[in-house]
């Protein structure tokens, strides 16, 4: 069922920018259009591009914020990517803050 929804109406997660839009809804209570607009502005792309796997794969690679492929391009992944996403979206991410505290970087 998760796959059916992803194909029918989902944004595509880290294949595109679904994780970033979800993050703005969950952390800032933004409604869908507001969250899409916010992410598009931060990424300097149009709202229409947000769910385009091809354009967003290249952009995620350029920004080094992780995508579905590992290896080869040495993409940031997991916590590494979230450090960059927090800065890109200008938000605090809980596990990033914890990482900073635990490594005494903050």
């Amino acid at each position, binding site marked *: 069922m998760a796959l059916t929804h992803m194909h029918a109406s989902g944004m595509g997660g*880290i294949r595109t920018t*679904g994780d970033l839009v979800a993050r703005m*809804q*969950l952390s800032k209570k933004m409604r869908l259009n507001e969250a899409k607009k916010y992410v598009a502005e931060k990424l300097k792309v149009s709202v229409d591009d947000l769910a385009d796997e091809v354009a967003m794969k290249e952009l995620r690679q350029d920004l080094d914020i992780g995508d579905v492929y590992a290896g080869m391009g040495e993409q940031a992944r*997991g916590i590494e990517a979230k450090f960059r996403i927090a800065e890109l979206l200008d938000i605090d991410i809980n596990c990033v803050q914890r990482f900073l505290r635990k490594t005494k970087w903050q």
Partner: protein
Amino acid sequence: MVVTRMGDGSFITMTRDEVLRDVEEGVADAVKRGKIEPLSSDEIEHIVDICCRPQKFVSVEKGNELVLTYDSGTLKVTRLGIPIGMPQILQLYERVFGADSLELAYVHYSFKPIKSIVPEEQYAVAETSLVTTAPLLYGAMPNLPLYTKPDGPCENAAELLPMGKIEEAKRAQEEAAEYAIKDMVFVSSGVYEAGADGIDFDTTAAAGDAEFYATLKATEILREKYPDMAIEIGMAGEFVLGFHGSIEYDGVRLAGLYPHKQVGLAEKAGASVFGAVVNTNSSRTFPWNLGRAVTFCKACREAANIPVHANVGMGVGAVPLVMTPPIDCVSRASTAMAEVGKMDGL
């Protein structure tokens, strides 16, 4: 002829006029029960069009995509008998299933049993947060009945009510609610401090109004304690059952509230996202259920100031009440919720 299904999943054929009639009747049922606005004729026609398309799978037009959150996330793989750990399951969700968000969930998906294994769950959360990129929620059910005898310390309201012990049943539910609030706050605090982005209270109010009260109070406490925590309140059904009957939150009696009223209280308590539920009637057709579900969810979305994610799964959101939800219905419900209901997510 249009091939569609009943709410129990069985195939039926209908004419386009019959589909239109059933969608209109479903809309009318939601309007009557919820005292909400009906869909416009264009919106009804859009739902009819979605139902009548000949393809097995339908989807939104480009640009109408929305955000997906999940309930019992990791359990969906665990219950298939695939023996892999929760962090790895969520890596699959992220890298294979295209998930916009992730939810970590233990097999005993209720706060009471999880309370005793919080350190192990914290480890799973911390581990997952290192290897995944999407927002990570921890999910569990408030599940008030677990606090009743013989499993818990409280008297069982379901046994007291048939004996006419109304006041005793109310007190028992209020006592259970206090235990549940403590467990929800304890577990949610533990997983948040381990690195989760937040918590998903799933199937809220399954045991009625006292359970809804407990979840709202727990949300209020958590919002005060952790201002940045993501809190999703996903409901169990469309209508808050009045097992207690008179319990209130913020001066509002909880029994009998439909989604467009529930969401206002979730907002007041401090929720970040509200999960609206509309039950599927297995004796009615998919078009009837879809018209009804979209009408309720659209009214909820319009009443809300926070994102609303419609629950569209087994037996809710017009999806037939079966263990293997058919792709033809799920994809149509997904599309209608996005394009007609204009939901913030599912």
